[in-house]
């Protein structure tokens, strides 16, 4: 392959002074600092939800929202520090693909949940929604 004949006129420096011009065919993929920051943040963002759930610190309803929040933040941390996502990588196309995926993901998830929960509520009036009667069966055993 002839990739290493390219003149590298790209803005791929990730802003960390990582210009390896001596062997410029290897694009920098993060730095030690990036990975360490990402790792420490992920450990904190993982430990807190486990601690909240395992020690019953908050009411279950509140806990759900809090741990979903932590998960969302951790996904962003992984994207930035481990997957090196930024608006410039691959000329912005990475970000465009990500945004498109996020939109599709939102439609798939909210659409499915919305439709199916309402179908449960509207179509099976005698069985209750969310498996109320199923719970009853479970209790009988």
């Amino acid at each position, binding site marked *: *392959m*002839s*990739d290493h*004949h*390219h003149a*590298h006129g*790209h803005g*791929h420096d990730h802003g960390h002074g990582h210009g*390896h011009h001596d*062997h410029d*065919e*290897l*694009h*920098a*993929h*993060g730095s030690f600092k*990036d*990975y*360490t920051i*990402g*790792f420490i943040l*992920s*450990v904190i963002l*993982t430990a807190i939800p*486990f601690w909240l*759930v*395992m020690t019953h610190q908050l009411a*279950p309803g509140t*806990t*759900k929202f809090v*741990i*979903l929040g*932590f*998960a969302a933040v*951790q*996904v962003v941390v*992984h*994207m930035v520090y*481990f*997957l090196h996502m930024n608006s410039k990588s*691959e*000329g912005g196309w*990475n970000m465009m*693909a*990500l945004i*498109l*995926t996020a939109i*599709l*993901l939102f439609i*798939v*998830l909210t659409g*499915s*949940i919305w439709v*199916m*929960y309402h179908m449960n509520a509207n179509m099976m009036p005698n069985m209750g929604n969310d498996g109320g009667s*199923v*719970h009853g*069966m*479970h209790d009988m*055993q």
Partner: protein
Amino acid sequence: MSEINVTHAGAASADPSSRYYVREHHPENGTLLGFWIYLMSDCLIFACLFATYAVLGRNYAGGPSGAEIFELPTVALNTAFLLFSSITYGFAMLAAQKKNVKGTLVWLAITGVLGACFLYLELDEFAHLIHEGYGPWRSGFLTAFFSLVGTHGLHVTFGIVWLVTLMFQVGKHGIHAANYRRLACLSMFWHFLDVIWIGVFTYVYLMGVLP
């Protein structure tokens, strides 16, 4: 290929001036962009499985609920394995940037072992559940659970196969541009699986044990 030499069919003689030179203008690292788009499509597969779990996750059909079968300490240990394997893969990439073959191989090996530990615990959990009679056939909840977590585990399995393959490649041929590109693709794949796992442990396990 990024450069193509084109020769006129009629001017195949040795006259170099009859050959012209084409350099395709595609984005740098077209492979990495393509692989990223693959990952995004994979993300949609997981989105569908998450949606399925969201819909069926509380349909127990008289079977066990998440609170009864999930063991959070094991899940925490599994999460730790995957998280550590993410940073060790990062160190493998840093070693590869310096063309340090031995360092790359060592960090890749550690990453692979951590991935294998994760898989072992997950398969152990699956075997335990099936042994108890709580296989994917038992209820909608368990079907959705096995599909989602099993698909993630399958990805980790193939990630490990890929990782071992690359260890042989790097060991035999060193770190040249093509091998580095392959390592970078696997890096994205591996970190992507960790991102999916964030969703799994939060939505399936932690929220599953909440009433």
